[in-house]
């Protein structure tokens, strides 16, 4: 850990948001919650993804309704049983081959938040679709500093094609801003921290000056790019469109930061970087996600707990085999047992997040009361690459719009996207359809 003794006054400069903090004073442990004079705290949503499926036999509860017994993998969630909905029967048809052959891992991740069957391509023309988090971010993102935040616990694979002719973009990303624009997750807790609280910078330039400069730069870039576009062919023009979209996003973030910028003291130490230990990494990210909700810096977050098809070895819990090959256990009991250990380990981390949200006061209750947090995988049985009966949890009170504490079983092949439609509805984001949805998922608020 870095214990840093700063000069009396240090300038913290965030992305666009620039706040000067008397940091020594700020080191007081008491955290001041953002003042919320308005009645109801906002509703937030987050999506946590685990790769390679979850062993169904140790996940899916036998009984339905409130009295079900949690199986081994889910047990870390036992303390939050009354805050959790277990949803069984949801399907991502888009994850299935549908004539495209192998590539279930790539499709599992690409379909997970989009409900889309991604185009099979190694590069040139990637195409998935708008993801649920981005659908919300586009509509309500202007209310917060960041429309959405995308996080991950594993770097994308460095080299080679990712899954049977599918571009790595599919297995590395959950969030899709548009059908060809994945939103890459940030892996480094320190950089997330600096996004929220600002980086240490020089005192020389006043934040106002930098903010003014940035606006002027972004403005002139847009003019430049538009001029440039007139000389380009359609494909290059599309590339520049993508760039312009990003420029406008950042411009808007700078403006939002000026309007809503609230200098609050960081409730945690500045992380050093990416911890080697998985649990430590996960917990730092969950701390940061909690803080981001708490500051109302964003209302939409995604976390990829490992990239789809991940070959991470979980030595922290004595599993030295690579995760993905292990899930192709072919019925081998020993291998299954190791997969179960990994599955449960992931849930343990998630339970930490839920506990964190539950213990963070927010308005008249806790953050958990005002959140909808999805946990799941785009594969059910990793051994057989199944895309039905996906393992899905929905935690949180949803501002009273959910009735947790139950295991609900849906009809076979109910689109997972129906859940997203129901969530967007509760977020106040009117949406006709998302991916392959055919209605809003029922029974979330009652039987």
């Amino acid at each position, binding site marked *: 850990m870095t214990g840093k003794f700063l000069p009396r006054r240090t300038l913290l400069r965030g992305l666009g948001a620039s706040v000067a903090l008397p940091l020594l004073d700020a080191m007081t442990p008491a955290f001041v919650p953002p003042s919320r004079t308005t009645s109801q705290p906002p509703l937030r949503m987050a999506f946590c993804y685990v790769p390679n499926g979850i062993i169904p036999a140790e996940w899916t509860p036998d009984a339905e309704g409130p009295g079900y017994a949690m199986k081994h993998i889910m047990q870390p969630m036992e303390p939050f049983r009354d805050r959790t909905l277990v949803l069984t029967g949801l399907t991502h048809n888009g994850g299935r081959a549908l004539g495209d*052959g192998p590539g279930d891992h790539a499709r599992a991740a690409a379909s997970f938040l989009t409900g889309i069957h991604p185009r099979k391509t190694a590069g040139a023309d990637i195409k998935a679709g708008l993801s649920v988090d981005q659908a919300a971010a586009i509509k309500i993102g202007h209310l917060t500093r960041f429309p959405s935040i995308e996080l991950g616990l594993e770097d994308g694979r*460095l080299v080679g094609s990712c899954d049977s002719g599918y571009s790595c973009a599919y297995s590395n990303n959950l969030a899709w801003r548009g059908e060809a624009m994945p939103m890459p997750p940030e892996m480094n807790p320190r950089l997330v921290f600096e*996004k929220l609280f600002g980086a240490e910078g020089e005192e020389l330039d006043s934040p106002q000056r930098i903010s003014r400069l940035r606006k002027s730069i972004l403005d002139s870039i847009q003019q430049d790019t538009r001029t440039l576009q007139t000389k380009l062919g359609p494909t290059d023009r599309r590339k520049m469109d993508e760039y312009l979209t990003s420029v406008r996003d950042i411009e808007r973030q700078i403006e939002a930061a000026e309007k809503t910028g609230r200098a609050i003291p960081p409730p945690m130490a500045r992380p050093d970087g990416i911890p080697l230990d998985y649990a430590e990494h996960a917990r730092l990210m969950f701390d940061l996600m909690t803080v981001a909700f708490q500051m109302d810096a964003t209302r939409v977050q995604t976390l990829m707990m490992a990239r789809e098809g991940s070959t991470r070895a979980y030595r922290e819990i004595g599993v030295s085999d690579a995760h993905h090959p292990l899930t192709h256990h072919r019925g081998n009991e020993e291998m299954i047992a190791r997969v179960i250990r990994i599955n449960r380990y992931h849930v343990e981390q998630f339970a930490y997040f839920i506990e964190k949200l539950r213990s963070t006061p927010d308005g008249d209750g806790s953050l958990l009361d005002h959140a909808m947090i999805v946990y799941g995988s785009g594969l059910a049985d990793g051994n057989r690459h199944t895309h039905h009966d996906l393992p899905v949890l929905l935690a949180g009170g949803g501002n009273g719009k959910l009735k947790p504490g139950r295991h609900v079983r849906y009809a076979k092949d109910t689109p997972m996207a129906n859940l997203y439609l129901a969530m967007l509805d509760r977020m106040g984001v009117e949406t006709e359809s998302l991916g392959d949805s055919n209605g809003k998922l029922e029974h979330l608020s009652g039987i």
Partner: protein
Amino acid sequence: MRTALYLLIATVSAAYGQSTFRKDVRPFLVRYCEPCHSAKSKAGGLNLQAYSSVASVLANQDVWDRIARKIRTGEMPPKGTPAPAPASVRNVLNWLRAAYARHDRRTKPDPGRVTARRLNRAEYDNTVRDLTGLDLRPAAAFPVDDSGYGFDNIGDVLSLSPALLDKYLAAARTVANAAIAVPRTFKETIERRRAGRGELPGPALEVRYNFPAEGDYDLRIALTGRRPAESEPIQLVTSAGGNVELVTPAATPNGRPRVHERTARRKAGPLTLRVELIGADGKLLAEDPIRGLAIEYIEIRGPRNAVQTPPVSHQWILICGQWPGKYDGACLESIVANLARRAFRRPVTPAETARLTAYVHAAIKDGASPEQGLRDALEAILVSPHFLFRIEEDRGKAPHPVNDFELASRLSYFLWSSMPDQTLFDLAAKRTLHQPAVLEQQVRRMIRDQRFQGFVENFLGQWLQLRNLDVVKPDPVKFPSFDEELRSAMKKETELFFKTLILEDQPLLSFLNSNFTFLNERLARHYGIAGVHGPEFRRVPLSTGERGGILTQASVLTVSSYPTRTSPVIRGKYVLENILNAPPPPPPPNVPSLEDSAQGFTGTLRQQLEKHRADPACASCHNRMDALGFGLENYDAIGAWRTAEAGLPIDSSGALPGGRAFRSPAGLRELLFEQKDDFAECLTEKMLIYALGRGLDKHDRPTVRRIVHSLASDQYRFSRLVLEVVRSAPFLMRRPEGGIRR
């Protein structure tokens, strides 16, 4: 022999054509192929009855290239069906070559279309380095670039999300602040560093600290732990940037931390400080978290008597006036123009210069210094699309040569992963760069330049997947000898080997089989090769047949393994994809999944895989993959030589597609060595993809064939390959996209 063949083709090509097709090829297809590959049965999705004319063949060259490979290697027709006489196979192949040759002579080359390429992480870092002279590597914080066709420099795939633009803005500020110094004073600060989060204090602690200015800094090292009075003496060793600075007896704390303090003059910039506790045996003290002596923290205080030394970047950027603060209007403008020209890699218009210089004047008007204003202009330059993208303009509708500045960038990003240098800019300005003699001279110069390391890291690193070596995690229980030292030695061996083959302009084929490599003591021990002492790498002759060529190097063998064991399937696939240019297709949708075919079956890995291959649906591909992988089974998952696994002797015999058998890794290498043209074509395609920043399609077949042909006629020399790639139509030209908006 291939050369002779081509001469033959050239002279008799007129004789080949439709009549030969009817006489030699059609009957061959009917007799040997169409029993399975007919319109009705379409084995493997291939219907050969559809090919009734030369034109139909030429329209599907990618299909026919595969067909040619299969009948040449004897993979097709399969065992158990009537085998054609070697002479009739030759006739078919000769006809195809001649038809191709004629086709290639008559067709205008299609350069294909390249999408504007965003700089990837490596290119961004290198470009910033060559633009400013500072090796800042800001891209470490950028999200991973997605790759396509095996490389991460593909224009279509490189997207630009808001998150990335965010990072570009931050990086631009960081670079501008570092590259242009503003006169300032330095306050004394205290930085205290401890063992990493969750770690207990240990006998060594390393700190990387960016010293803000040249000045005096106190280094305070606090020790903790208890030791009996009569214990052996312990030395405290402090090193800076790898050089030992101080050795002193360590004080024994007995409860309260004891602090060693020392003051030293330090230069500005990042420096790694390492503190170690060394026992009487000269080794690092064992960790004893309960009572042992350990380093509690390192503290750096300073600077005092600070002197601001201007960064080296000033000589690249502040080309007139005097730092600090003395620049007239014309000078500011030329500083900005020069920066923009180099950053945009092309001449800039007066209007562009004026818009950028306006940032400087705006800052000065705001009461900021000219240096702050120049920083602003640099920040604006570094987030401009003209910097972040390599943009080439379409001129007209027909394919046209790229201009000399665009060519300079194509060359520099291909061979250096960075921006052009002054020489290239000058030649572009003179419009002579595209002249064949100049081009060749520049390519040869660029290969010898140290920036060529960019090619080694990015091309080799991705082609052979060496980059994955940085992230592989072999199981520490099964492979206790694997450590960071070995990891970096593995990579170094392959890089040095590759660079040497290039610098000595050896034939490409030496990649596959060579009688030397580069080793240091650590790697030599890993290979069981005696007589190599010390940490530095040197050229070592190989004589035993156990090693030689990239497929026997630990780097390649490790990245093609699982953490706990080898995988003949992965290794076989690796060889097919990266060496033989015959990537196996993904399993078809209707194959039974592995678990159904192998449920409950146990046995050695080889037995399990053989069971798997008993299924004909799996066999067609796995016969090729697994057999190649078995030939490398003498190397374990971190590339060490072994003759037995789990008490059973290793069986490293197998056969290539087409049936040629080998009995050992050396035998496999010899067979691969004979597949020169497959390897040459494979490397040609990979290098073209990398050089062009796009995938290849059937219009590129003539280009590939031309390059492979000229390689064969120049002993497959590496420099010939690079030169031919650079001289190819796709590299020199551009095909505009229709519909130009004005």
